[in-house]
Structure formats: structure tokens, C-alpha cells
């Protein structure tokens, strides 16, 4: 079971406004994209992020070889409990997750 980051070319995370986070998995080519869409279990991503599965919106974008995952921010950007103003830390967490 490889880490997602070893299969995909790049994983990035960013705010999509103060209330949403978005993660983009750039797979690079069709083969990596096929491995990622088949091996990346959305329920396991939800468990990794400790959020309800129904909070995740997933887009498999074949034309770009990209999988995009968006979710409401567990802590709104900038509140006392928010540790990460720009949502930067979610990408390495996801990249280190093992996929099937």
C-alpha cells in the first residue's frame, strides 16, 4: 500500500474562502489517475480528517488527471481554534495517507 504522495505528482491544500478547504491531487498521467481514483477511499479520507463523510465533496476530473476534495473548514479560518490560516497543512496529511 503506497502513500498517495508517492503515486500522485502533487497534492496541495488551500482555503476556498474562510469557510471551506479544498485539496487538489494532481496525478500527472492517466495511469496514476486510475490508481488514485480506484485506490483513494473517500470514507478513509473523512476518517483521516475526522469529519463526517457527507461533509466531503469529491470531484474526479479525468481531463486534468485530478481528484479534488472540498470540505467545510472544521475550524473557520482565523478563529482561536484554527491552527492553519491558509489551510496548508492538510496536503501533507493527505499525501502521507496510504491508498489501496
Amino acid at each position, binding site marked *: 500500500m503506497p502513500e498517495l504522495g508517492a503515486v500522485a505528482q502533487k497534492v496541495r491544500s488551500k482555503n476556498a474562502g474562510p*469557510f471551506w478547504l*479544498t485539496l487538489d491531487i494532481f496525478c500527472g498521467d492517466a495511469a496514476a489517475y486510475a490508481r488514485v481514483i480506484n485506490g483513494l477511499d473517500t470514507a478513509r479520507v473523512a476518517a483521516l*480528517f475526522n469529519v463526517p463523510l457527507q461533509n466531503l465533496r469529491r470531484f474526479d*476530473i479525468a481531463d*486534468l488527471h485530478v481528484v*479534488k476534495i*472540498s470540505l467545510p473548514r472544521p475550524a473557520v479560518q482565523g478563529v*482561536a481554534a484554527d*491552527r492553519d490560516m491558509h489551510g496548508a497543512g492538510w496536503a501533507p496529511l493527505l499525501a502521507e495517507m496510504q491508498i489501496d
Partner: protein
Amino acid sequence: MVTRVLIPSGALGLGYDAEALARGVAMGPDLIAIDGGSTDSGPSYLGRGQSKYARASTKAEWKGLLVARAAANCPLVIGTAGTCGTDSTVDWLLDITRECLGELGQSAKIAVLRSEQRPAEIAAAYDAGRVAPLSAAPEIDAALISSCTHIVALAGAEQIAAALETGADIVIAGRATDTAPIAALPLMRGDHAGGAWHGAKIGECGALCATNPQSGVIMIAFDDRGFTVIPLADGAACTPHTVSAHMLYENADPFILHEPGGHLDVTGARYDAVDARVVRVEGSVWVPSDRYTVKLEGARVAGYQTILMATIRDRRYVEAVDQWCADILRRHSARVVERMGLTPDDFTVELRVIGKDATLGPIEARHVTPVEVGVMGIITATTQERANEIGKLLNPFLLHHPLTREEEQPTFAFPFSPAEIDRGAAYEFCLNHVLVLDDPMAAFALEVVDA
């Protein structure tokens, strides 16, 4: 009709390539448009009504754009002046503009578009059912709205168009959508509406949609069927992949973009390479909405903060840092209650362990023993004086707290004296809502000044 919009960079203050800008000016743009704002650095800028970027950077770059505008003989538009687009940051940029014009020996007609809202009026609109939540919006009521230090409404193409229709040389707009300053002119000239909004979204971050994203400068040429993306820096190229991938950026949904008065749907967009560096896009659709709404942003004071930092290099303490922190928090909280007469509801204290899980907290999945950790104490209280006092009560624990009663008193490293650092007011975003308007200009004010 072809409408050429020259975009120097993703934001004023980030820098742009002067040679590439000159190349764009030589192509005869109909408009130079730049974004001045973002919520991405947090609620403090809106809460305080201040710019994130240094005045010196803003002035240097804005002056270059005033020179480019005069050379191109076309209007220059900035949306969301001064990061947050409040009246205070609009006035700040107007002041910088006057200074630059004076130094350049230029005169100009300036349209000033204000987006700031009075909290009491938004609270009344909420009570009248004219404020509606977007997805993941926080719970609000009229009292919370009234407690905001600043509220802005995001201007769309209609308000920017009204500013351009004054015949102004320069438009300084308060809060606006990232896309509106770019989309307004092609829409006014009857170019394809889906293409106008889609091209504006592709261009709003400057050359982020090209292979050399730091170069900044890009030209979007709009027409009655779509748009063409032309990067202007040496060595920068746009490909169908780099352009279409930009719809992913800072966007929860990569196919839909909501704007005042409708939404853009790019599901059917086609991206074709014109040559090795230029991309043509057609097929995006603008879907008008039944009612006209503008998005609101608001920030309010959530408390006042004091922070302290200690670094721990002793291996036994590094290995037991969670236990050490929990013990400190329990004892410190009891001491605050006892000595300051507060209740636990009056303050919060967090010890964030840098080097262990400071970025992700409880969801951190990797666990190793680091060489050292930083322990950052974050205190939030109802006044700055109180937060500082609570910090002073925390200080001795961070300096000397032992893991066990039996051992000799330890001492830990402090990087600063005094250890307590007052952060001032901590703000929070509290609106993710839209305001329903009968007339797009109803929430905005337009004024023309000669400078």
C-alpha cells in the same frame, strides 16, 4: 468586439514583471485590471480595516501601473483596494494615488466605489429576511451582525461597470469579487457572458494559469464567442492543462462560480492550444439568477490575545510533553480562578506543541520523538490587560514546571523577554451570507474625484 484586459499580477503588492507589463501595454489593452484583496490571510485585516501589504510595496507597484495606464491610454481598475476593501483601505489607496500622481506630474479622474456596510443596516436587513446563508455559514443574529467592526459587500460587474461609465481614468473599488474588475468591461461591450466571467476567473491570479506563475503578467482577449489567454513574460506558456487547472484554485467546486446576479458553469468549456503558449476557451455558460444578491463579509472582535513561547530540549520532557502541558493547564487555570477571581468561562488557554502536532492537532497521523519542541501558550480573554495578566501567571509554569515532585526544579529556554507578547484584538469572520438587493447600486456608493 474584442476586449483586451491586461492583468499585471494576482494582487497589488505581490510584484510584477515590468518588461512583460510593457509588452502588454504595447498590445493596446482596453483596460488594466488588478485585484487588491483577499480573505486568505485571515480576519484581522477586515476586522481592523487595514492592508496586509506594506504601503511601500503598494505605492511602488501602483505607481508603475499609473505610468502603464497613461501609456496605454485606457482605464485602470483595482478591486478590493487594501486587502479588505473597507472605506478605510479605499481612502488609504486614494491617498497613495494622489501622492503618486503628484510625483509623476499626472492628473486623473478617479471613480471611487465604496462597498462598506453599516452593521446596523445589515442587522435590519437580516431582520427583514434580506440576508440569506451560503453553505457552511455560521449561525448569526441581528446582535452578532451589529457587533461586527467592519462589514463589506462584494461588488460585481454591475457596480464596476457603473464606475467605468463615469469615464474615469482610474477606478478604486472597495470589496469586489476577484473576477468583477476584469469581467465588467467585456460584459459592457457585449462580449460572450460565459466567456467574460470564465476568462476573468482564469486571469484573476495573473500568470498562475501559466507555466511560469511568478511572472505575473497576462492578457485576456474577450470576444463574442469566448476568450484567449496570452501570457506575456519571457518563457511563460499557457497550455489547455494550465488554464483549465486554474478553475481548481481556491474554489470548492471546480465547475461552478457564483457571482452577483448568477453563476458561471464551465462544465462544457473547451480549451484548445492556439500555439505553444496561447490558449483559446469557448463553451462556458453564464446562468442568470432570479434575484440579485451580493455576498457579505464581516469580522468582529473575538477576544484579546497574549502569547508566550518556551522551547524544550530535555529529552525526558520532550517525550512527556503532552502530560507536562496537561498538568500545567490544570494548575494554571486553578491559579487564574483563585488569584484573579475569574471563572473558567472568562478565558481560554491553549498550549500548542510546535514540532509535534501544532499544524494539525488531534488529527496528526505521524508520531516521532523530535529533538526539541516549542510550547506556545495562547491566551484569549475579554480584555488585553486580562490576557496579559493570565500570561504572567502562566510564565513561571513554562519556565520551571517539573514533571515530578521529587526532581530538582528544571528551567526551559525562553526566546524573549518579556515572555508575554500581546497580540491585541483577535478577530473572527462571522458572515458567509448574501444580501438581496433590488438595485445593484443600493449597497454601494460611487463618487468621482479629480486628482
